[in-house]
């Protein structure tokens, strides 16, 4: 082999080696790029899924807030109407005093309240019970409760409770739109059946009944 042939051989081998090195590098780069693209695609997929979950949560939050707002709106109207009913009820007390209510005169209504109050005072007693009835200035002045009525009530309560009850009208006056306070003479037990107190005491059932009646058919 001559020198020229040897040089050609060396160059050819070097060329071959050079191409092989470059080709391998290109292949490695291609594979590396492919892996990176695949990783980025996977990453993008996970990112989109996470963003979708966040989006759904945000949507649900908006919907929940709207439902809560709607419930509050409904509740506000219900409360307004209950308050309106209670206001109207208090205003009607005046006409109840003059016209009665559902066939019951106001003195009869007071009589019923006195009876209930006295029976609950008498319930815990075995001996005679002396009780006094306290009225508002207005009701006392109108003489809704007179001695004859107290006598009848006394008999009725004594018969019903089996306890000898004595009822009297107190000179003391209370501040109230109506109703009665019944107190044992010794002051130990008192039943407050003023209309305001009854309203407060019956608040829960009152509101339930009002709701039921107001929103029938809703």
């Amino acid at each position, binding site marked *: 082999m001559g020198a020229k042939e040897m040089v050609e051989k060396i160059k050819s081998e070097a060329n071959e*080696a050079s191409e092989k090195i470059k080709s391998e590098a290109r292949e490695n780069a*291609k594979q590396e790029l492919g892996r990176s693209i695949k990783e980025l695609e996977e990453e993008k997929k996970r990112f989109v899924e996470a963003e979708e979950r966040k989006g759904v949560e945000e949507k649900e939050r908006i919907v929940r807030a*709207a439902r809560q707002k709607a419930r509050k709106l409904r509740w506000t*109207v*219900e409360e307004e109407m209950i308050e309106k009913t209670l206001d109207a009820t208090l205003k009607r007390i005046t006409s109840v005093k003059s016209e009665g209510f559902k066939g019951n005169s106001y003195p009869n209504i007071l009589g019923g309240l006195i009876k209930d109050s006295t029976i609950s005072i008498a319930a815990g007693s075995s001996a005679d019970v002396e009780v006094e009835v306290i009225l508002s200035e207005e009701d006392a002045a109108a003489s809704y409760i007179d001695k004859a009525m107290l006598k009848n009530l006394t008999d009725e309560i004594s018969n019903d409770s089996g306890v000898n009850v004595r009822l009297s009208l107190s000179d003391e006056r209370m501040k109230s739109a109506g109703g009665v306070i019944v107190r044992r003479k010794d002051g130990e037990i008192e039943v407050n059946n003023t209309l305001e107190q009854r309203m407060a005491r*019956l608040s829960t059932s009152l509101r339930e*009944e009002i709701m039921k*009646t*107001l929103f029938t058919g*809703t």
Partner: protein
Amino acid sequence: MAVEALKIIREGEEDGRKLLEEAKASVANILNEAEQEVKRLKESAREDEKSIASEISAKYIQEGKKEEVAIMETADTEVEKLKADAEANLESAVNVSLELILGVR
């Protein structure tokens, strides 16, 4: 003559060595380009993520708002009916209330 031949061979060897050096330089270049391309793809992906996030968020917010409008429309209608029913039943409710307060039930 032999000296001349050796010189030619040595030059050939030198050319071969240069070729290999160039090839190595090319490899570094190829790898560097690949690295740059990966970096560019990653940056592009980060940019894409921002717009994807804002598109997805906007889509669900829009859906939520749409449902919100429907819910509030229904609520408004219901509330109007509630008010109308309550106004119509107000007198009865006052009577029920009086029955309880006055103890005439």
